[in-house]
C-alpha cells in the first residue's frame, strides 16, 4: 500500500555492477517506502536476479558505481550477513541445496541470529519447533520438511515454499522475492501468495521479481518497474503489468513513459 510520508526503506541511486568484468547493472534508481510492494519485470537476462543479489551483497559481483541506502545504513559497507540481520531478505530464484544440514537446524540458527540482532530471546529446539510448525501451516507445508536436508531433493515448488517460510520466520523489513512464482502450479501459487500477503504490512516492504503477470493477480503491486539491459526503463502502476502481458516488452524503449505512468 502506498502511504503518504511513510519512511524510505530502500534508496538505490545510479547503481552499477559487474561480474567477471562484464557490466550487468548500468545505473539503477529505485526508492521503496515502508508499506509498498514493488514489482520488477523484464525479460530473461535483463538483470533482475543480478540486482537482487547485489542488494543482498553477493561477493561475485563488483559494485562499480552508485549507492544503496537501507534505512539508516549504507548497505554497500555491510557484508551480506549484516544486511540480512538488518532486515533485508532475499527469496532465491534458485534456492541452494545444503546436504546433511537439517532444515530445522538451519531455520533455527537463522531465526536465532536475527532475533539476537534485534535484542530478542533465542528459541530452544523445542520452542522453535512449535513456532515453526505454526508458520508452516500458513504455507500448507508438511512437517517432514523440517527433518530433510535444506532444499535437498525438494521439488521446485517445495523450495519456493521453504523460501517464503524463511521470510515468515525472519520478519524482514524488505523482502526481495526473485521469481518465487516460477515452478509453482496454480494452487501452490495461491498458497504462497496468500502467505506473502499475510506477512506484508505497513511496516515492511516487498520487491517482487517476476516476468509473469500471473503472480501479480494475487499479490497486487503498488508499482511496476520494467528492467531492460541493466536499467529500469519504465515505471508504472499495477496496470503496467497487464499491459506487458498483452503487448510484451518490444514496444518499450529506454525513454518511453507508460500510458498511465506513476513515478516512483
Amino acid at each position, binding site marked *: 500500500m502506498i502511504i503518504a510520508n511513510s519512511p524510505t526503506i530502500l534508496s538505490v541511486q545510479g547503481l552499477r555492477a559487474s561480474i567477471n568484468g562484464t557490466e550487468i547493472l548500468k545505473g539503477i534508481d529505485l526508492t521503496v517506502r515502508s508499506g509498498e510492494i514493488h514489482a520488477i519485470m523484464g525479460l530473461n537476462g535483463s538483470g533482475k536476479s543480478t540486482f537482487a*543479489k547485489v542488494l543482498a551483497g*553477493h561477493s*561475485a559481483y563488483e559494485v562499480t558505481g552508485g549507492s544503496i541506502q537501507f534505512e539508516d545504513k549504507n548497505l554497500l559497507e555491510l557484508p551480506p550477513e549484516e544486511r540480512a540481520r538488518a532486515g533485508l*531478505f532475499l527469496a532465491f530464484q534458485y534456492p541452494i541445496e545444503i546436504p546433511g544440514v*537439517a532444515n530445522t537446524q538451519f531455520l533455527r540458527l537463522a531465526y536465532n541470529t536475527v532475533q539476537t540482532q534485534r535484542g530478542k530471546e533465542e528459541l530452544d529446539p523445542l520452542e522453535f519447533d512449535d513456532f515453526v510448525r505454526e508458520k508452516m501451516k500458513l504455507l500448507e507445508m508438511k512437517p517432514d520438511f523440517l527433518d530433510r536436508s535444506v532444499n535437498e531433493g525438494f521439488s521446485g515448488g517445495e523450495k519456493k515454499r521453504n523460501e517464503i517460510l*524463511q521470510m515468515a520466520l525472519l520478519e524482514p523489513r524488505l523482502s526481495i522475492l526473485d521469481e518465487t512464482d516460477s515452478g509453482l502450479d496454480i494452487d501452490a501459487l495461491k498458497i504462497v501468495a496468500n502467505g506473502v500477503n499475510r506477512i506484508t504490512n505497513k511496516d515492511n516492504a516487498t520487491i517482487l521479481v517476476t516476468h509473469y503477470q500471473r503472480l501479480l493477480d494475487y499479490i497486487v503491486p503498488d508499482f511496476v518497474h520494467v528492467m531492460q539491459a541493466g536499467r529500469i526503463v519504465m515505471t508504472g502502476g499495477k496496470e503496467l503489468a497487464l499491459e506487458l502481458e498483452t503487448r510484451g516488452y518490444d514496444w518499450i524503449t529506454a525513454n518511453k513513459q507508460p500510458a498511465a505512468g506513476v513515478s516512483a
Partner: protein
Amino acid sequence: MSAVLQSLVNQPYKHGFVTDIESDIAPKGLNEEIIRLISTKKNEPEWLLSFRLKAYEKWLTMSEPEWQNVHYPKIDFQDISYYSAPKPKKKLASMDEVDPELLRTFEKLGVPMHERAALAGVAVDVIFDSVSVATTYKQKLAEVGIIFCSISEAVHTHPELIQKYLGSVVPVGDNYFAALNSAVFTDGSFCFIPKGVKCPMDLSTYFRTNTEGSGQFERTLIIAEEGASVSYLEGCTAPRFDTNQLHAAVVELIALDNADIKYSTVQNWYAGDENGVGGIYNFVTKRGLAKGVNSRISWTQVETGSAITWKYPSCILRGDNSVGEFYSVAVTNNYQQADTGTKMIHIGKNTRSTIVSKGITAGHSNSSYRGLVRIAPTAEGARNYSQCDSMLIGDQCGAHTFPYIQVHNNSAKVEHEASTSKIGEDQLFYFSQRGIDAEEAVSMIINGFCKDVFQQLPMEFAVEATKLLSFKLEGSVG
C-alpha cells in the same frame, strides 16, 4: 579464497607447546643393541626380547612401502632416538603425586584428568612420552575383573595373556612400520575384558609425544572374551615442533564369541605449519580380529592432525555372523597428506561390514581413501556396504578414492557408493543471506557432512570432535 575464510582455515595449532620434563633419551640409531637396551630398561622377560629381535630381523629385510599416495622426504631411521622416558622421581601411589607440570599439560589440553576420571567416569591411562606415569580407576575396573594398564606393566603382571595375544593379529612382519613397532615399542595400553563382562565405563588413553626427535611407538592390545564388551577412546595431541616426528603405532583387537569392541579415535597430532614445515608422520597399523561367532569390531576415527597419515584400521571377520565397522572422518588442510581407509576381510559365514568414510580436504592438502573389501570363498552370505564421500574446500586440494573389491563367493553382496562435493560460494552466500556468517555456515555444513560418523562417537568425544573440526577449518569457497 576470501580473506575471512583464509584466516579461519589457518588458525594456529592450539596444542602447540612443549612440556619441560627431564627426559631420559636413548642415543639415536637403531640396532640390536638399542633393542636390547629398551628391553633391559623395561626389565622385560626373555621371550619379549626375542619377539623384538625377530621383528627387527624381519624389518631389516623389508623396505618402506611406496604404494600410498603420500610424498615425504626419506626417513632416516638411524637419526631417531627410540626410547625416552620422564625420569621417575619416585614411585607414584596416587594422582596427587603426578608431576604438576604434567597435570598442567593436561589442563592446557582441556583434559583435566582427575575431573575427567571422576566426573565423566573415564579411566585415563596416561601415557606420557612412551612410559605410563599414572593409571587411574584400575581398582574399580579390577572389581569386575577388567585389566586396564600399560602394556609394560601387563608384561609383568599377566605375561601369559601378552605372550598369547601380542602379535596374533598383526604379526611382527606384517608390514614395514608394524615390524619397526614390534622391534622398538616402548609402551601403550593393555585391556582385558573377561568373559561376560560389560565394561562399566569408556576406557580412555591420552597420548602425547614430547621429546623432540624421539619416535613414538605405541603398542595397544585389547581383548574381549566371550560375551564381553568395551568401548575404548584414544585421543592424542602433540606439541608444536619443526622437525618431523615419526609415529608408528600398532593396535590389536581380539573379540571372542559374542564380544564387542568399539575403538574410537580423535587424532590431532601436530600437522606442520601453513607451509608444510614440521608435523607428525603417522604410520599406524590397527587391526581387529572378530574371532568368535557374533562378535563385533567397530572402528571410529576422526583424523585431523599429522603431516602424513597412513592408516587403515581393519577387521578380520572370522567368526560366523561377525560384524566389522569403520567410520572415519579425515580432515586435511595446508600441506597435510592422508592416505587412509580400511580393510574388511570376510571369512566367516554371514559376516557383515559397513564402511563410512568422509574426507574433508582444504588448502593444498591431499586426501585418499583406500579400502579393501575381500570376501573369501568361505564367507557364504557376506555383506558389505561402503560409502565414501569427499568434500573439497577451495581448488588447490585433491581427493582420491581407491576401492579394492575382491569377491570370491557368489552369495555375497557388496555395495559401494561415492560422492564428491564442494563448499561453494553460493552455499555460503545462502547462509549469509540468512544472517549466518561463514564460520558458522562451514561448521554446520561440515558437521552435517560428518553426522553419520559423529553419531558413532561417545557423547563427549563427539562434542570434542565437532569443536576440533570447526577449529581446524571453518571454510572456503569452491
